[in-house]
């Protein structure tokens, strides 16, 4: 019936089979892409649409012994950039130009970072801690350029500025190398990290866990909506032994001192708790947190980062004389009642050593010698005790080794004596003993070593290791005590010797060189020191401990005013201010 050759249908069938084979191939490919490799592609699609914005968690607070806030966190605005899929280079150049005007940064540099963000396909921080006036202008940019966003983050804040700056340290950026090793612990390249002081030492505890906001973005980088959020976990709070009032008084005291330069430590002689620790001049750690364009340019260059309280070493001068007394009387090499005549100088062989008072003190026993700080009396007593014994005592009182406060950079000072000389293969001469007797020569101590020493004088022999953190309290309620009272050793002297030394120190305050620190109602024990400095003005020392009348001492103070001149006039008033604050004698600090 057919009009046409149905044999042609073989060819049609062949065509059909070819199509069928093609469809099967497509089906297999679909199975592979959609079912077998689904997990991979789903992940790619998810990362395509998701941008993770990290939010810095609030760092733990740092509080004084009564709970006053020394360091906290506050919300601050950060400018971030979310790279979209657009590859339009001119758009990036335009954005970099506009940003450089607002952020006062080089536009090339900003462009470099924008490109980096596109390469890494990750959000970056363009600026942090943006002040309010810049905010409004920047939020306009947000409407012009997709991908520019302002977010709220927790930012470190030191409410009292420079208060305890050296103790707290500061926050800073990581260099690329150290970031690589910290990456696994959750640090991002633009994370802040504690760079010095307690911020550095307790970084792990203070640092919280950063939050994450997962945002949906479109191909252009517009934020569409929030997909999910992992809230931040704040860091642990650090409770310090610092007493806000005493710290404040000590800072004010040093600031008002002649040279405005020095280091000072206040300890509780009963357990070594640090009540105040200051190095002057100080700095405001808030400066580091300013946006880059507001940071003083030479901030790091001129930073008084050197912590004189634990790193500065100075000859102790006359404050060392109690130790000489302890050595000579406790060993029985002399009696306190023995007298020495002071003509104003002392001769040893062909050398002459001067007393600080040119006219001479006349006849001196222990009480008068210490009260007037007569050098000739101590030259004589030192030679009686011999250099090696004084060296032995100074080792017992903790000189020549770190107190172990645990802040980085602590200095151990330098011990001076025949044994130390012998280690360096040099000989010891009697003249060295004379120098050592009044705390001069090569003997070098730090203010914190002096504080430990004077605390030991106050508590009759216990060398407490100074500590500053009383406890760490975690957000979940648990507590930890990483530091606490720890005895580094004892100096065993007869109670008669202790009585002598303490009576001497009391007399210094009531009727001697330390009369400026005599406070009614408070029993202050002290000693001035003026250590000779061949390079410039003498360093002024004042060490003291005090307690309310009839009570055991609760405060031990060591004040050094670098190049301050005389101990009684430069360092004494600082100590007085501190003791007044400690016992709340004066209201106006």
């Amino acid at each position: 019936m057919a009009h046409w050759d149905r044999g042609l249908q073989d060819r049609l069938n062949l065509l059909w089979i070819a199509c069928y084979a093609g469809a099967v191939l497509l089906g297999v490919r679909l199975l592979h892409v959609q079912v077998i490799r689904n997990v991979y592609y789903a992940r790619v699609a998810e990362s395509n649409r998701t941008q993770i914005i990290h939010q810095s968690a609030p760092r733990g607070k740092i509080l004084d012994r009564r709970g006053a806030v020394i360091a906290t966190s506050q919300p601050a605005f950060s400018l971030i950039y979310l790279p979209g899929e657009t590859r339009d280079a001119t758009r990036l150049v335009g954005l970099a130009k506009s940003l450089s005007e607002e952020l006062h940064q080089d536009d090339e540099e900003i462009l470099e970072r924008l490109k980096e963000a596109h390469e890494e396909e990750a959000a970056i921080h363009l600026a942090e801690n943006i002040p309010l006036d810049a905010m409004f202008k920047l939020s306009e940019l947000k409407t012009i350029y997709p991908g520019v966003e302002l977010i709220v983050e927790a930012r470190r804040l030191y409410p009292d500025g420079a208060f305890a700056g050296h103790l707290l340290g500061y926050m800073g950026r990581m260099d690329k190398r150290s970031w690589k090793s910290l990456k696994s612990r959750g640090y991002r390249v633009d994370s802040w990290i504690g760079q010095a002081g307690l911020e550095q030492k307790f970084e792990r505890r203070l640092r919280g866990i950063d939050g994450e906001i997962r945002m949906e973005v479109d191909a252009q980088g517009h934020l569409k909506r929030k997909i999910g959020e992992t809230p931040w976990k704040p860091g642990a709070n650090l409770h310090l032994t610092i007493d806000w009032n005493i710290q404040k008084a000590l800072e004010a005291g040093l600031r008002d001192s002649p040279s405005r330069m020095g280091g000072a430590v206040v300890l509780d002689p009963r357990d070594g708790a640090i009540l105040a620790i200051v190095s002057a001049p100080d700095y405001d750690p808030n400066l580091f947190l300013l946006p880059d364009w507001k940071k003083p340019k030479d901030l790091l260059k001129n930073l008084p980062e050197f912590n004189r309280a634990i790193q500065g070493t100075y000859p102790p001068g006359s404050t060392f004389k109690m130790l000489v007394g302890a050595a000579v009387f406790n060993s029985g090499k002399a009696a306190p009642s023995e007298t020495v005549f002071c003509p104003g100088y002392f001769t040893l062989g062909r050398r002459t050593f001067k007393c600080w008072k040119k006219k001479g003190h006349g006849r001196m026993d222990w009480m008068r010698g210490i009260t007037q700080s007569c050098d000739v009396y101590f030259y004589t007593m030192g030679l009686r005790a011999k250099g090696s014994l004084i060296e032995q005592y100074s080792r017992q009182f903790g000189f020549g080794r770190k107190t172990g406060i645990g802040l980085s950079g602590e200095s151990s000072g330098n011990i001076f004596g025949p044994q130390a000389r012998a280690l360096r293969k040099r000989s010891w001469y009697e003249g060295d003993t004379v120098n050592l007797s009044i705390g001069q020569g090569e003997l070098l101590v730090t203010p914190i070593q002096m504080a430990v020493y004077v605390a030991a004088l106050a508590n009759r022999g216990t060398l407490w290791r100074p500590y500053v953190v009383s406890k760490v309290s975690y957000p979940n309620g648990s507590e930890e005590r990483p530091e606490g009272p720890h005895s580094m050793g004892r100096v065993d002297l007869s109670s008669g010797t202790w009585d002598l030394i303490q009576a001497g120190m009391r007399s210094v305050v009531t009727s001697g060189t330390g009369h400026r620190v005599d406070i009614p109602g408070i029993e202050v024990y002290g000693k001035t020191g003026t250590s000779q400095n061949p390079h410039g003005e003498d360093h002024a020392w004042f060490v003291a401990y005090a307690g309310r009348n009839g009570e055991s001492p609760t405060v031990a103070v060591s004040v050094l005013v670098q190049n301050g001149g005389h101990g009684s006039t430069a360092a004494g008033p600082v100590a007085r201010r501190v003791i007044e604050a400690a016992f709340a004698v004066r209201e106006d600090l």
Partner: protein
Amino acid sequence: MKSDSGFIRGRIDWAMVGAMAGLIAIGSVAILSAASPLPYYSSILQKHFLALGIGVLLFVFGLGFNYQIFQDQAKTIYGLVVIMMIAVLLIGDTQRGTKGWIRFPFFSFQPSELARVGTMLALANFLDRRGKTSHRVGYVLGAFGVVFPILALILMEPDFSGTLPFFPMLLGMLFCGGASIGHLIAMGGYATLTLALPLLWTMLSLRPEWIADSILLNGFMKIRQFDAEFMIALAVVVAGVWGLYKLLQMLRFNVQVPAFLAAAGILAAGLASGVLVDHQLKGYQRNRFVAFLVPGADPRGAAYNVQQAQVAIGSGGLWGKGVFSGTQSRLGFLPERHTDFIYAVIGEEMGFIGTMSVLALYMFLLWRIVNAARVARDRYGYLVCCGMAATMAFYMLINVGMCLGLVPVAGVPLPFISYGGSNLAITLFAMGIVGNVYSRRYAFY
């Protein structure tokens, strides 16, 4: 027609209609979803449903009266197509650099779509008339002669991808019409040379270090220009073939002269048109070649589209993310999402189930077209159905293959699914004719 003549009529292939309805339904849902984030969403929907309405009317029109009228009026149809294609060059609207649209008050129409169906109807007539001499070379050359003017007019728009569906249609109809396999191979060889040479040149230009080391490759690269090197290459081809012929003669092989002449002609013509195509390629088209040849070269460049399409499809998984919930398409990662890459939207939102459904419906539809060809009462109807089957198979295999990264990106739509009014309406019209062939089929008693 009398019912006792062995032909029956008035039967509609409801299975085919059902398959089309299914594809259009899935396509419309996908367009609704994919275009929704776009600012001109409502305009897209209006145009889509307007085209669908017109398409249904055209389908009924194609189905309505005896298709043999198309054979009777083949010359008129061909003439109208040529006039229409010339008209578009004169008064057409330019979109994306192609002067290929005629603007109407509410929509634009792409005449090359109608030209494809018109050419198919005219070609079927030509091949039917020459049916008895299908083994001759004139059958193939003549068919090419019918199609060539239309192709030339479309290339003048210029619309390179618009000419692509003509080739499978032509080859399919020639093959099913009974053309000599040798002739088809010759033609295929020519076509392969035409496309492979630009591809090869593009690939080699990506590897300058290879060219520098080789005089031969260096010379090959220089053939790209119509200058002395091209002429030398042409002469070398002719001389080489002649030399081989002489050699085989000397070795007393029984060689056929026409075959050698044909081989030389094909090589020379292929070389010439290869250079021509290479010159006609636009930058973005060459980039697609590059993206296909070296997918990892530039993930943000031309390969980006293909990669994002695969991510969209792959992330859909078995059940998909749900209509209106595909992140790849809705957030703008997927390009051309309501047109050429709509299959990727289906993959993302409707999953493996959706993509396989589309594939299955397409295969079912193809089977119905092939079936219509088998039962056609005459060779003309058979050839029309074969042309349509080849076209639809080409569209489906190339579009889906492109979304899956199996073939280079060529601006080829997925009929019934992609947004594109002209394609939808004209495809429905052509399917109406296929249904017509089926309804007036030869009945076996």
